[in-house]
């Protein structure tokens, strides 16, 4: 997802955050804590709270809230969604079933993407999630997901796919990241680190204060109050925890940009995505062909393993030997269609 970094330009400044925060010498901080009125026992207690916060099971409600904030960042940094927003107040947009959707080309494109995507996602291990698929207005070739069921593709990707099987494969790969809850690995550590930054800042640590320098004093005090009030249950949707939600989300997005997901997670998403694509009735040749046609220069789908490695892994899964891809399944999967793309894609051009 490095392309988003380039697109964003000012993101780092906007977030003003760094990962791998150093808090300096703990004993010095504790000594300093005494001078700021926060005793060592309070700091230790706060740090324990942070560990406890990180160890909590992540509920769907938390996943959806954090996923929503990540999705908003993807939308903004991707240049906005290809959709025509009705001229109604914000409050009226919050009732999805009643939002009037005009049959414009851009909305029809989004309808098409959701029909294709939801048909794939309902074959997944999380079939009743509220899956949402959107197109961001970027010329780069990429796709990305956010926890809770958000999947986005770029306009550039839609221009590159040759058939619906390729598109379905891309969507299925992203659906797999959500069903595997791949972002949780980064998110758990982000929660702990950010919470501890608040604890150290409360104790007077200059290093931690520097890490949170882009946030105003009132905001930091709000985060400290949320840490003080934490009693073993974390509701990030509550007003009282708004500062924590912002801290966690900003840093999670930053870390996503920096390193992406792991190689094993990407290959696992390819494997699960292939299953989903076939389950939805598409030939697996579509997705394998799409990945195989990506350049190996690391520009498209940065942070993913090289396309050639992904193709080899998928062909192994399908029983092929690399020289005769898909040969082991040729009898059956050759009957599965690639399916032409819908005309609605014209809106992306």
């Amino acid at each position, binding site marked *: 997802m490095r392309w988003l970094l380039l697109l*964003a330009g000012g993101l780092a400044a*906007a977030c003003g955050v760094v990962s791998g925060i150093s808090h300096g010498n703990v004993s010095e901080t504790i000594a300093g804590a005494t001078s700021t009125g926060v005793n060592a026992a309070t700091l230790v207690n706060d740090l324990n709270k942070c560990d406890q916060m990180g160890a909590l*099971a992540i*509920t*769907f*409600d938390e996943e*959806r*809230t954090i996923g*929503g904030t990540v*999705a*908003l960042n993807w*939308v*903004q*940094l991707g240049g*906005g*969604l290809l*959709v*025509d*927003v009705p001229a109604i107040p914000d409050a009226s947009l*919050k009732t*999805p*079933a009643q*939002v009037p959707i005009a049959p414009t080309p851009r*909305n029809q494109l989004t309808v098409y993407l*959701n029909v294709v995507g*939801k*048909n794939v996602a309902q074959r*997944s*291990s*999380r*079939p*009743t*999630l*509220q899956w*949402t698929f*959107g197109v961001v207005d970027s010329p780069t070739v990429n796709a990305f997901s956010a926890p809770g069921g958000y999947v986005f593709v770029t306009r550039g990707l839609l221009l590159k796919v040759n058939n*619906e099987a390729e598109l379905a494969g891309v969507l299925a790969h992203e659906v797999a990241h959500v069903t595997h809850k791949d972002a949780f690995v980064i998110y758990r550590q982000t929660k702990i680190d950010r919470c501890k930054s608040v604890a150290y800042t409360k104790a007077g640590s200059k290093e931690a204060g520097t890490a949170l320098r882009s946030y*105003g004093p009132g*905001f930091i005090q709000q985060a400290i109050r949320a840490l003080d009030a934490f009693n*073993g*249950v974390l509701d*990030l*949707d509550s*007003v009282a925890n708004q500062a924590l*939600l912002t801290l966690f*989300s900003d840093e999670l997005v930053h870390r996503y940009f920096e390193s992406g997901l792991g190689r094993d997670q990407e290959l696992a998403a390819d494997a699960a995505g*292939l*299953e989903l694509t*076939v*389950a*939805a*009735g*598409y030939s*697996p040749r579509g997705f394998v062909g799409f990945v195989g046609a990506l350049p190996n220069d690391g520009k498209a789908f940065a942070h993913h393993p090289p396309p050639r490695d992904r193709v080899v892994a998928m062909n192994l899964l*399908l*029983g092929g030997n690399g020289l005769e891809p898909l040969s082991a*399944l040729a009898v*059956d*999967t050759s009957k599965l269609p690639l*399916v032409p793309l819908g005309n609605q894609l014209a809106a992306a051009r």
Partner: protein
Amino acid sequence: MRRLGPWGLLALGVAGGALALTAGDKVYVRARDTQVLKKASPTADTVAKLQPGDVVVWRGADKDQPQWHRVDVQGQVGFVWFSNLSAKPPDKELLTAPKGSRPVDPQAFASSGAAGKALTEGAIRYGTQDEKNKGDLKPSMHDAVRQTLTVEAIAQQRSVAELQSQAARVQGGTP
């Protein structure tokens, strides 16, 4: 003893051949409103309509129409399109409870209200707060909220019939 071929193995979520289904095994329904039909044909009468997580007994792929799999369900025999079945149950979702969380199956989740959530209030506050709308980025974060809510509306307004129609389009004539 009848076993599932490689295509069926992949589609049923056991790619790699680590597992193989045997007639009499339990399998799980994946998709909403999955129809069990009297014959291996999309135009056959409906025997039952099932929901994600429902369990059926797998009897094997039809000899002439291998995409259709014979199942026992609710004391009746019928046929289900292969992609609506899975060897693995759907995941449970964790809902917030007074003392932390509680796992619920997909059907309970779907009717809980949590499943139909759009952007949460917390996420909307995140995107509309002044701090997030100060820079020059286009769209603004507030506009990103409005765009995302609109796309969520489009997503949620898709009907089961639309998805079944899409499945039929892809698969060539299934209901």
